């Protein structure tokens, strides 16, 4: 009991010192009956607090890191804003923001791309690719999808960079398919997937104004190359408006927030 009281008093004196309310001497005067026990402990605590309090980051480091943190925050906010206009991608009411819609849609596209282009490409091995190249190409795409899936499972949000990475996977898969040799049904399915991906990236591109623009544009270029190889027509206008053959009709003009207001324009093709 007595020991417990001493610990209470010691803590009270330490807190008073750390908060700048009392010096060690003031505390000793306040508890004269415990001063003998308190003094060495309080002085040790005060010395420890003093040397730690003097520690400072190297000049400029704090501000430099702040800029990186704020830049990352801006990127996240931009990604959130961009995806919030797309059905199923935005935050849910009453719960944490979830981008499962975005993840699921992208994964579905890529999985379909793997399914469609894989068998097709294997039929074309004699003409265009060796079997090893084909496996490598599809493996890369699958690995990227797996990475995204693992990140999602661990609760990490999906960034615009992931869109770029998946577009890279699309490019890899495109290399596995030789459009002129595709069967009519396979080519139509592949066109649809690429068209949807192109539409999403065009919308992201039209609405983006931040640091993520380069990533989106890079993904867009890759997807356009794939689209061109599949014979999909699309405008090369300022905002890269979607292809005339794109599902869902024409893309609306960007709103004041810089994102398309008509959600149906971004809806995946049924």
């Amino acid at each position, binding site marked *: 009991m007595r020991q417990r009281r*001493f610990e209470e008093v010691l803590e009270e004196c330490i807190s008073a010192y750390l908060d700048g309310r009392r010096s060690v001497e003031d505390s000793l005067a306040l508890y004269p009956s415990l001063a003998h026990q308190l003094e*060495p402990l309080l002085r040790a605590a005060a010395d420890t607090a003093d040397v*730690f309090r003097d*520690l*400072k*980051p*190297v000049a400029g480091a704090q501000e430099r890191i702040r800029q990186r*943190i704020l830049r990352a925050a801006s990127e996240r906010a931009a990604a959130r804003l961009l995806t919030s206009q797309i059905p199923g991608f935005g935050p849910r009411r009453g719960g944490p923001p979830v981008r499962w819609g975005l993840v699921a849609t992208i994964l579905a596209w890529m999985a379909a791309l793997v399914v469609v282009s894989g068998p097709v490409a294997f039929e074309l091995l004699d003409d265009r690719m060796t079997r090893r190249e084909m496996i490598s190409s599809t493996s890369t795409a699958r690995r990227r999808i797996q990475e995204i899936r693992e990140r999602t499972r661990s609760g*990490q949000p999906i960034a615009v960079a992931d869109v770029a990475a998946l577009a890279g996977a699309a490019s890899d898969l495109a290399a596995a398919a030789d459009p002129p040799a595709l069967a009519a049904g396979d080519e139509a399915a592949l066109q649809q997937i690429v068209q949807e991906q192109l539409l999403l990236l065009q919308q992201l591109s039209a609405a983006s104004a931040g640091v993520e623009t380069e990533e989106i544009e890079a993904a867009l270029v890759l997807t356009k190359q794939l689209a061109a190889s599949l014979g999909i027509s699309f405008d090369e206008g300022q905002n890269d408006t979607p292809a005339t053959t794109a599902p869902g009709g024409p893309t609306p003009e960007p709103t004041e927030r810089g994102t398309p207001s008509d959600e149906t324009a971004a809806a995946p093709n049924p």
Partner: protein
Amino acid sequence: MSPNSNAQGERLIVDAAKAGDESALSELYTLYFPRVYRYILARTGNPYDAEDLAEEVFMKVLEAIERFQWREAPFSAWLFRIAHNALISQRRKDGVRGRSGPLSDGLALDAQSPDDMVENRLALNQIMEAARKLPEAQRQVITLRFSAGLSVAETARAMNKGEGNVKVIQHKAIAKLRDAVRNRPRLHETEKV
């Protein structure tokens, strides 16, 4: 001074940061970066590691702040749990039990004169060396209380312990540090001799 002295104001800032307000995030950073840096430096002894890890901590805060719940812990306790986990993760990567040692020249210390700076550095090295020999719980209490500036209540929440337990641990840790600090040579005393 603990940010808890203005708990309501901090709550508003944290809630704004949760909602994506970048200026609120910047305020939180201003409020907590020096404390996180000091906490990590006190544990690692390396100012460059401390900078890197402090940045990593705030990146994790940025990723997770939307999920932060007030009912689970005060913000400070939540933040320093993240910092502690980052330290443990770094330690695993390094494959050693901490990398504390003499502080490098890259360390910035508040001091009025070169003599003060030398004395501060000596004192810091000595206290950190003594702290390094403490059991993990005692070491964590000392760094959370004295370098991060957490209250006993916040320290208890950050460590998932009772406040009474933290006070006992603190008492034991200070008693062990006492000898190291008491025997510390001071520059001016040395000159007099």
